[in-house]
């Protein structure tokens, strides 16, 4: 297969503002290609346009400009009820006057299928999502997790070409959310169904996705695997949005020597792997994750002072002030290294291999 399965070209969506007097651009010139069977997440803060893209794929919004192709067919002008896409809604949108079985069978009833065939498929999918034998339950009596499973089954039973998820876990409590996202990932891998998932929760995106599209203000910031997004963020926005409490420092590129680059910060020189797009004299932002700094009593840059200690059991988080800047530092397995107290003088060691440079 050489052609992408889902292809979005130059997609733009403009809305009129509430007072209808100005245009708001929700999605701007969005391009994306997806392989069959891929799980892709649109990740970004609220209002970044991710849900709007999902709704345009599902047919609930019309693009202002641009095209969406699914399996070599342009689907822009196909009404929602004729599209081969199924959505799992944020609110689940389970029909309250129907039981589980009827909810799941709803979509199948619009096809030329024998009643026996419908029953067979519904029962199969209910078993698949772990709700076998519960078809007669009214949906109002279900727990959040069960409702989620019904919503998933109702969408999957139609075997759509693309399964769309609109923040489906946001109404569940934290523990169930973690359980359900693993469940969704397993189901998706078993069925190999092409899926697009919208969320603002980065952990969810990391767990579920083959690839993540990080969005901001209607535009793509970066597309990549979870690992790429975390370890090699292309913009400061991505570096800041992904991960918790990322530290930033500014420096200057001094020169390139033997395939390495010398970068100056804090009036010291540090040697990094060579970045092809950086030249001598460029100002750079250093992306330093909290776990990339080690603390010790003697070695390294020794002018830090511990200002806050948060003990979390498996790790300790410190706030350390050094060179007039506050750093967030995460130390795993604190029982091994010992714990510093507020007011302690500490030295900072940077894990240079993992620090990433962005052109400022």
């Amino acid at each position, binding site marked *: 297969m050489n052609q992408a399965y889902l292809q979005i070209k130059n997609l733009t969506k403009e809305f009129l503002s509430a007072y209808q007097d100005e245009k708001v651009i929700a999605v701007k010139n969005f391009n994306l290609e997806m392989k069959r069977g891929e799980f892709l997440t649109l990740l970004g803060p609220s209002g970044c346009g991710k849900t709007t893209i999902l709704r345009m794929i*599902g*047919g*609930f919004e019309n693009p202002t400009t641009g095209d969406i192709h699914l399996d070599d067919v342009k689907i822009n002008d196909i*009404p*929602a*009820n*004729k*599209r081969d*896409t*199924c*959505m799992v*809604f*944020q*609110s689940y*949108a389970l*029909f*309250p*006057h129907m039981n589980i079985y009827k909810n799941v069978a*709803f*979509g199948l009833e*619009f*096809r030329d299928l024998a009643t026996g065939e419908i029953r067979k498929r519904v029962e199969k999918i209910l078993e698949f999502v772990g709700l076998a034998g519960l078809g007669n339950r009214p949906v109002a009596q279900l727990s959040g997790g069960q409702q989620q499973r019904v919503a998933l089954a*109702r*969408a999957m039973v*139609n075997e759509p070409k693309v399964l769309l998820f609109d923040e489906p876990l946001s109404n569940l409590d934290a523990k169930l959310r973690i359980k359900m996202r693993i469940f969704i990932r397993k189901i998706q891998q078993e069925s190999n169904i092409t899926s697009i998932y919208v969320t603002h929760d980065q952990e969810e995106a990391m767990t579920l996705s083959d690839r993540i599209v990080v969005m901001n203000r209607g535009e793509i910031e970066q597309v990549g695997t979870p690992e790429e997004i975390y370890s090699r963020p292309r913009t400061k926005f991505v570096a800041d949005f992904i991960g918790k409490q990322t530290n930033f420092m500014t420096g200057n590129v001094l020169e390139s020597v033997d395939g390495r680059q010398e970068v100056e910060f804090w009036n010291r020189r540090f040697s990094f792997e060579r970045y092809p797009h950086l030249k001598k004299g460029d100002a750079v932002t250093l992306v330093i994750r909290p776990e990339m700094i080690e603390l010790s009593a003697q070695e390294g840059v020794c002018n830090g002072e511990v200002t806050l200690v948060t003990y979390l059991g498996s790790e300790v988080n410190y706030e350390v002030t050094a060179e007039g800047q506050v750093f967030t530092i995460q130390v795993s397995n604190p029982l091994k290294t010992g714990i510093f107290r507020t007011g302690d003088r500490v030295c900072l060691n940077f894990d240079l291999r993992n620090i990433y440079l962005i052109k400022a």
Partner: protein
Amino acid sequence: MKRIAKEPFLAVVMLFIISCLFLFVIYPIVRVFLYPSGKELITVLSHPRYIKAIFNSLFMVVLSTSSSAFVGFVFAYTIARTDVPLRKYFKLISLLPLFSPPFMVAFSYIMMFGKNGIITAKLLGLSVNIFGWHGLWLAQTIAFFPIAALMMEGVLQSIPPSLEYAGRNLGATGFTLFKTITFPLARPGVAGAALLVSIQVLADFGNPIMISGDFSVVATEAWMRIEGWADVSGAAILSLVLLVPSFSIFLFQRLWVGKKSYVTITGKSTQIDIRRIGSFMRWFLFAFCSVFSLLILLVYLALFMGAFVNGWGFDWTPTLRYVREIFSRSTEVTNSLVFSLLAGGGSALFSMVAAYLVSRKKFFLRRFVDFTCILPTALPGIFLGIGYSIAFTRPPVDLHGTAAIIILSLMFWNIAMGYQTGIGAFQQISPSFHEAASNLGASSMRIFKEIEIPLIKGPFFSAFIVSFIRAITTLSVIVFLATSKNVVATFSIMNLVSDGFYGKAAALTCSLLIIAFLVLGIAKLALGKRFELFKV
């Protein structure tokens, strides 16, 4: 516009709804305003007789609203916030008058406490004159406190118990807690309920026409103007006198009190714990509610007795004469039933369609439809009746003496309740149901049939039942429209009471009550939990 052209059926429905609202709500109102001349206006409004009636009406509004609101609040508080014994029965009893003709209280009290009253004259041997403002005050208090209680109970229920817990936690208990937390939080809602009651007191026609005697109020004077002098202009002017304060209170209530409410409806019902209150207070509330519950029960007792007694006050021999008369030759009960079924059904259907359009579609005049559908709440029955009689009993539209004029007036008088129920229901049906169904392959028609209609069934029938009961029990709307050809039961009852034929009047009232409660019972059985009435 492009979208409307795509759906011609929708466009026709919109046009129909808008035209109906213009013709049957706006047009009669405008006709009342335009009917009297400026000179007539000054003559009537400067006449001492009508100045006195206006003063009397205001006097009754203040008096009866205060007492209804007070009794209503005590009931609501007892039901919602205490462990007073029998409070469930107090609630049940206080609901009864909501399904009964409003004038029934006055009529029944005449039979109980009047000159020939079974309690005053027969049991106590007193000679009491109940006719006048004091009788009216009693009747209106009993007639209108239940609606106040119902609304205020809703207000109290929606105050989160956590706030009271917080108050108690900070040291406030008992009456201090009530004074500093509960009542201030409930105050906007309570004020809103009182204002709505005051509209009803102002518009009340049935009680004063029966019990107020020489003490005239505006609503009854308007009726006298037409009945006695055939002076439509004078009646129109007096009905305008009713409309202006009623409409102002309505606007004030919606714009000001609505916004001031501290209570936010989140949809999550919080379990309220019933706390024990001091034993003095507990027995005081019990005694208070018992007395007023008894006063309600006596209303029904007297009516049922009256239907089976030969001559109330002088000949107490039992008889089945009046009951038989109703079954043998009484068109008014049949008329009442048929007209009200049609008006109730029409009203529920019309208001659901209007609510659907307003909540789901964007179209020109959408705000007009929204406003006009709620407007009838602010129209006193008397005013609407006069409006219909001016607008539709002479060419170009002459429906004089027809069933149509009664059905239409009752139908449009009642659209506000159904409409508000409908708006609430459509708001609860999340648009994502629509999208989910469409996403699964359902077309617009299928979505309407399989998603919207099943979900709207409960609210539709609630609207139907409320409209039906209001239609079959009203007197004020139809008093200017009923003739011998299209007579309805409430109209006959009024005439029978004023001529002293209490037996037949009581039997007719009882048959209305039986019909109303039967319909209510059937609806409750058929719809179960989905059936909610008077959601305020």
